[in-house]
């Protein structure tokens, strides 16, 4: 009888060990995209509690920063379009706007969060992308010539004014990164050491997945599989700007949501730009913001922009399938497809 019990015990523990219950996983739909949270090595109750706190925070930010449904941002935009000043008694918004302005300068205005009018003109201020005509070129030209910029926004004693009526704030390339940094704060505050947060492809890793680093797959822009995998060291984040998630097709031509603030047209030479950002206080924001200038800049300027922004890890896939990759990225990445070496240029 003893032997029986022992064997049954072994059988049960064998079956339990087969199911991987060290990782807690939850998904949700916020910011118009899928959010995934994975937490390693916490009790299910604790992991669930912390995940829910993060989702609550994301929902709060979604409502706070929404570019076209009523939010503080749309209130500000309404005031700006009427050349009125508006009082903002919200320190978080003020610091977000200042930081967005700082990043606009840093990226030589290739990340420009004040071109909401252009984005709307192309039909991207909508949950359904069903525009089937190119916007009126005169309208685009007028907007470009008025040079919308965060520089025209002044905030003094909580009063915001803009001397450019065409400025409309859209934090689409910033909010998800900011949310990642907020998620990191919540995880640290709640003593969660190992987690992976994915907001619509923008990922931040905290700690590890057990003994191993968190491993991330990089989506192939034109095929339904990953093109490469990469290990995210503790605290690192990864972000991609791509033309394959939000785009419209007009006359068999693809127009992505990544609009070049200098031309007013979607950038069409690039399929994707992926960057890795080392741990820092605002690494989430950087992983979101800094992929935009690499995606939008002219081919020959891309590498210089990466250098000026101190981005040591980048992978850029061009429309002719040629690949620009930094040396550090090339050393770290593991290709999951056979890539023709002729197509790769290492910088």
């Amino acid at each position: 009888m003893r032997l029986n019990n022992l064997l049954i015990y072994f059988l049960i523990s064998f079956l339990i060990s087969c199911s991987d219950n060290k990782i807690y996983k939850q998904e949700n739909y916020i910011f118009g995209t899928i959010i995934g949270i994975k937490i390693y090595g916490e009790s299910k109750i604790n992991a669930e509690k912390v995940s829910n706190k993060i989702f609550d925070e994301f929902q709060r930010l979604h409502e706070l920063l929404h570019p076209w449904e009523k939010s503080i941002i749309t209130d500000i935009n309404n005031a700006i379009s009427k050349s009125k000043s508006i009082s903002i008694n919200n320190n978080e918004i003020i610091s977000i706007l200042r930081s967005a302005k700082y990043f606009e300068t840093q990226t030589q205005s290739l990340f420009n969060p004040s071109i909401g009018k252009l984005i709307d003109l192309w039909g991207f201020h909508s949950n359904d992308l069903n525009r089937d005509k190119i916007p009126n070129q005169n309208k685009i030209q007028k907007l470009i010539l008025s040079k919308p910029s965060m520089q025209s926004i002044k905030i003094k004693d909580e009063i915001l004014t803009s001397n450019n009526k065409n400025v409309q704030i859209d934090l689409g390339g910033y909010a998800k990164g900011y949310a990642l940094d907020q998620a990191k704060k919540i995880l640290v505050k709640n003593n969660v050491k190992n987690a992976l947060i994915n907001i619509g492809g923008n990922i931040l890793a905290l700690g590890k997945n057990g003994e191993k680093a968190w491993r991330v797959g990089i989506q192939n822009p034109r095929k339904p599989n990953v093109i490469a995998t990469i290990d995210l060291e503790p605290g690192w984040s990864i972000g991609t700007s791509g033309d394959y998630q939000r785009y419209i097709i007009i006359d068999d031509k693809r127009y992505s949501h990544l609009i070049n603030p200098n031309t007013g047209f979607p950038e069409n030479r690039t399929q994707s730009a992926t960057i890795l950002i080392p741990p820092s206080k605002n690494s989430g924001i950087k992983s979101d913001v800094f992929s935009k200038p690499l995606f939008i800049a002219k081919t020959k300027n891309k590498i210089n922009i990466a250098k000026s922004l101190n981005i040591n890890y980048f992978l850029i896939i061009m429309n002719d399938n040629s690949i620009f990759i930094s040396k550090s990225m090339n050393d770290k990445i593991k290709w999951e497809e056979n890539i023709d070496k002729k197509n790769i240029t290492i910088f």
Partner: protein
Amino acid sequence: MIKKILQFSKLIKSGDWFVIILFCILIIISAKTLWNLPQGKYLEIYKNNEILAIYSLNQQISKTINGIKGKTEIIINNGRVRFSSSPCSKKYCIHQGWISKTNQTIICIPNKISISIVGTKKTYDSINY
């Protein structure tokens, strides 16, 4: 009836149990290692963030799942899949229509049911896109 079972179980000695359990373990191990899923894509169905079932996408079948609000119906049709009915109010899940590519996901938050398409091998924890 119960007496009969008890009598029968008395006939099985500890040595027999040893053999029975040994074979059970062998079957489980060999099933896990040898039963490689055939090539193709699979549908993972999650309820309350826990995996409920995995189906091959290469079939024509509909499945009804009891979520927290009621019955959700999912249709698999030779390589693609969609929500066909759901008790949620906004029906976003149904409006998503068919999905067929690896890593595509549809979530129905009110009924706490989500589906995603996975390939046969998955060597990473998350996808950057």
